[in-house]
Structure formats: structure tokens, C-alpha cells
């Protein structure tokens, strides 16, 4: 009897771990972006090494790219140029600024059908846990490890512990996957899952779409988890089939009777629309507790909530309404593909007519590296994943919430329960 994690781990062990040495773990897909890769390519150059498997590597540019106009500064442009040079020198496929498929690394790999059940996936980015939604073992690594994977396609890893988070019941009307994961992190704490790989299971998880599962898995790291995952099922198969990917993934599930190091369970039907109140992602509470708090900026986007379904949710609230006076609203699609799909549905017009700014894809104000940021003293409602001090700009305050809650704040200028506007 083995868990999904046990099966994924054992299938990728090149050399077993011992007390003296960690396991050598094989990586099926390595995602690369401009911020955490330049020093890794330098490490290869210093030793005269090549990228071992360019076919298992995919690069994009997202963190420091502009969402309108040109690059904010020469340094950001130089970083993107460095990625282009490195990818060309090592034959690594790159979704560059001219690509009609470029976008946030954790949005593009799934939508291109590259993220699949049974894989190990890593990236120099902590939100790599997103890909666990497909029943993959996916986790963030540092730049030294990026060099390890570029050069050897492997990592040295100790086997983490396992945790099952069982989510029963059904989410209520107007309550989303983002509310669910904020409630879960509030319950577990920012270090509640440190050293563990989470498997999300239960009726409420089965009922989630792939994009909703990605939102939940994405924020696993905010509870300290190494990774978060959902076993593949018919929902996974349908998503992949729509992207031309077919296969039998029935082996990638936890056996009946398999045991986890820890078990946690929560009731989805008790979750309310959530918003954070402090400066860690674990400070979420029902929106009612913060209702009326004034907001100057709303950011809708990121690898957490920058997919088509997220934009549809925001548009549900904003359609036919106007952005409140004094509020600046950025809507940033997660990829060029998302942007194209949204425009085909007329979502861009909903946002623009409401008075929001419709942008080019990228990480944007989630990490505030590209010039999109808060001014000191501003408070945002943001669909991103981190509300750390200064995360969206020095002196700014971030309230994390779902696209519905963010859109409700956009049109009222205050923290508002979106169910009042649906």
C-alpha cells in the first residue's frame, strides 16, 4: 500500500538515499525563467558543461517583463537578454517576448500540455507546487539546484514526509478555491506543513476544476509544504485531452489503506469568502471581519489566479459596473493564451469599460519587479499569493483574496462580500 507521493518518488529515484547521502532524484520537466537562472548557467559555463536534456527544459520570461510599454529599467532588460543568450547557447526552448504562448511559467506549462500526471517537475520558483494539481511531484528549488538540474537532470533530495489534507463537503455559492486554500493555510499556519508533501483529497477536491486545483496546489508553499498534489481523475484527463495529451494515468493514486505521516481534514461547506488581515498568508479570515476597509489598488492576476476562469469570475462582478473613484485596477492575464481567450470572450471589454487597466501577461504586481507596484501607504486587494511586508512595493499593504473578492473591492473601493454583488 503506497501513497501517490510514494509512487512518484520511487519511480524517479536514480540512486537510493542512505544515512550518508540523499537520494538522486530524476527530473522529468525543468521550467526556467529569467530571475533565478543566470547564475546557474554561469555555473555550467565555469565548468564547461552543457544542458543535459534541453528537451526536458522549457524557459519563459515573466517576473521582470513589462505589462504595458517598455521595460522599466535597463537591468530588467539585460536579465531577459541574458536568458535569451543562455537558451540559444544551450538549445533550450524559450517562450520569448515575441511568442504568442509566453506567460507566467506556472500558467504556460499546464496550458501547453507539458505538465502531466506522474512527472517530477522543478523550477527556481517556490510556486512550482502549482503543477501538483495534475498528480505530479512539483517543487521549487534554489539557483544552485537549477544548475544541478541543467547539468545532470537530477537533484539530491531527502525523502520528505507525507500529509493528507482531506476536504469534505462542497464549497458554498460565491466561495472559491482561493477562499478554500486561504482558510486551510489559516488553519495550518505558515509552517504547518514544513518538510511535508501534501496530497489534497476528498469530495470537495474531486469537485474542483483543474484551474481551481492549481490555485490550491499553488499556495501549498504558503503553509510551508514542499509540494501539494491531487491524484489525476476524469477532470485531469479531460483537461489534457483538450490540449491533445492522452494517456493512462490510473496508477497515479494513493492505494486504499496507505498511510500518511499526518492527516488533516477540513469541511469545505464551512468556508466563507476570505481575505488576509496581516503580513503572512496565514492571516486569512472571513471577509465580514474586514468589511468596509478602504482599498486604493486592486490586482487581478498571478500564477495563483491569472487563468481564464479567474478572469471570468472577476468579470462576473465587474460587468456593467464602474471601478470606484480613487481605485486603480490592474487585470493581468497569466499568459498570452489566457489573454487571447479572454479577449475572444469579450472579458477585456468588461474590464476596460469598468475603468480597469487590461495588461500584457506576467507576474506583475504579485512580485512588483517590473514597475507595477504599490506606492507607500496604499492598500491593495490582490489575487496573488503573498502579503509579506513590502511585497508589492515598499510601504504598501496587501490583502490576499479571490478574484470575486478583488472585483468586489474594485467596484466599491472597500473590502466587500462579493455575494452581495452576484
Amino acid at each position, binding site marked *: 500500500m503506497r501513497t501517490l507521493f510514494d509512487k512518484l518518488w520511487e519511480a524517479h529515484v536514480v540512486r537510493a538515499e542512505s544515512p550518508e547521502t540523499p537520494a538522486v532524484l530524476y527530473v522529468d520537466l525543468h521550467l526556467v525563467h529569467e530571475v533565478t537562472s543566470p547564475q546557474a548557467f554561469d555555473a555550467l559555463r565555469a565548468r564547461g558543461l552543457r544542458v543535459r536534456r534541453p528537451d526536458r527544459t522549457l524557459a519563459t520570461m515573466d517576473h521582470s517583463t513589462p505589462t504595458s510599454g517598455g521595460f522599466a529599467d535597463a537591468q530588467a532588460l539585460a536579465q531577459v537578454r541574458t536568458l535569451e543568450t543562455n537558451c540559444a547557447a544551450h538549445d533550450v526552448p524559450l517562450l520569448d517576448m515575441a511568442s504568442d504562448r509566453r506567460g507566467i511559467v506556472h500558467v504556460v506549462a499546464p496550458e501547453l500540455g507539458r505538465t502531466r500526471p506522474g512527472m517530477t517537475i522543478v523550477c527556481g520558483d517556490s510556486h512550482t507546487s502549482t503543477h501538483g494539481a495534475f498528480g505530479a511531484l512539483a517543487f521549487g528549488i*534554489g539557483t544552485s539546484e537549477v544548475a544541478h538540474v541543467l547539468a545532470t537532470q537530477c537533484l539530491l533530495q531527502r525523502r520528505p514526509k507525507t500529509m493528507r489534507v482531506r476536504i469534505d463537503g462542497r464549497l458554498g455559492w460565491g466561495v472559491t478555491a482561493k477562499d478554500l486554500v486561504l482558510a486551510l493555510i489559516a488553519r495550518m499556519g505558515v509552517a504547518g506543513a514544513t518538510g511535508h508533501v501534501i496530497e489534497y483529497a476528498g469530495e470537495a477536491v474531486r469537485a474542483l476544476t483543474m484551474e481551481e486545483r492549481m490555485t490550491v496546489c499553488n499556495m501549498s508553499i504558503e503553509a510551508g509544504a514542499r509540494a501539494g498534489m491531487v491524484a489525476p481523475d476524469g477532470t485531469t484527463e479531460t483537461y489534457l485531452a483538450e490540449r491533445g495529451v492522452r494517456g493512462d494515468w490510473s496508477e497515479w493514486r494513493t492505494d486504499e489503506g496507505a498511510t500518511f505521516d499526518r492527516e488533516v481534514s477540513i469541511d469545505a461547506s464551512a468556508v466563507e469568502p476570505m481575505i488576509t488581515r496581516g503580513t503572512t498568508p496565514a492571516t486569512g479570515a472571513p471577509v465580514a471581519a474586514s468589511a468596509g476597509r478602504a482599498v486604493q489598488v486592486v490586482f487581478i492576476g498571478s500564477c495563483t489566479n491569472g487563468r481564464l476562469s479567474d478572469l471570468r469570475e472577476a468579470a462576473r462582478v465587474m460587468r456593467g459596473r464602474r471601478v470606484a473613484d480613487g481605485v486603480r485596477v490592474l487585470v493581468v492575464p497569466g499568459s498570452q493564451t489566457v489573454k487571447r481567450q479572454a479577449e475572444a470572450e469579450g472579458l477585456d471589454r468588461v474590464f476596460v469599460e469598468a475603468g480597469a487597466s487590461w495588461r500584457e501577461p506576467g507576474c506583475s504586481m504579485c512580485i512588483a519587479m517590473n514597475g507595477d507596484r504599490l506606492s507607500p501607504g496604499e492598500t491593495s486587494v490582490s489575487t496573488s499569493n503573498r502579503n*509579506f*511586508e513590502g511585497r508589492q512595493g515598499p510601504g504598501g499593504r496587501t490583502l490576499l483574496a479571490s478574484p470575486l473578492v478583488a472585483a468586489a473591492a474594485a467596484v466599491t473601493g472597500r473590502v466587500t462580500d462579493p455575494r452581495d454583488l452576484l
Partner: protein
Amino acid sequence: MKICAKCVVVRRHDVDTDQIIPARFLKGTTRAGLGPHAFNDWAERPVGGGVLVAGRNFGCGSSREHAVWALVDAGFRAVVAPSFADIFAANAVKNGLVPVACDMAFEAGDDVTIDVAAGTVESGGRRATFPLDPFARYCLVNGVDELGFLQEQSDMIRRYECRR
């Protein structure tokens, strides 16, 4: 490998890597020069010692190895905290920064001695032990380079690729 240095104390839990090095300083393409920006946005920057002491879950959040590069460039050789976020601890070891998981109490300016091989931390006559993965200890003490170690596994990696 012994570290003898004065400590700087941060009385906060959950110090995230955005605090250690804000994202706007991640636009460079080298590891160098980040020390002056360590804790850039804090009113009082906790720098000027060789050992940083902080609260639990140090280094949570973003995987940016720049946080470790910034601490090392600012002169730190070890961080003492009751617990660490996983990715930060892994990044630290790869750069010779010792993550000392221990909840011993310190005052700013205390002289601290860390014996990595023995896994002990001492200050003012008090002594505690701390856990460290044997491989991490081996790498820290002997200056082993993990990439070199992985390259030596290339035959096994090739065989693994063949049998799949």
C-alpha cells in the same frame, strides 16, 4: 569547521525571504553585491555580525537563493533559529551558510561558537546541540561541491534514462 563570531538578533518569527532581499534587487545576473541590500527596507538593518539569530520558520516564502547570497555577502556565516523553511535551509548549505536549528536564547553582541563537525553551539558558558543532515555536514565541513557529486553519478543517470 568552527565559526566564532558576534551575533545579531532579530526578534521575529517567519522572517520571509522578501524581507531578507526585496524582489527589486533580484534583477542582476550575478551572485555578487547583494550584501548592502540585505534587509534593505527595515528601519534598523540587522547586520554587522557573523551569526544571525532569529525566530522560528526563518527564510519562508520565495525560493530566491539571493537571500542566502545577500546574508553571506553581508558577512554572516551561520543563522541560528528554532526552525527553517525547507528551501532556505537547502540553499544555505550550498553556499556555506550554516543553518543552526536551535532555540537557545542570545543577546545582540554575544560571542557565539559553532562547531559544525560536532553539531554544537556555545555562548557564555552555555552549550546546545543542533541537528544537521549528515550529507549537509559533510559538504559544509569538507567544502564538497554538490554539482561535482551529481556529475559522478552520470553512469547511473544514463542507466536510469535507458530503462524508462
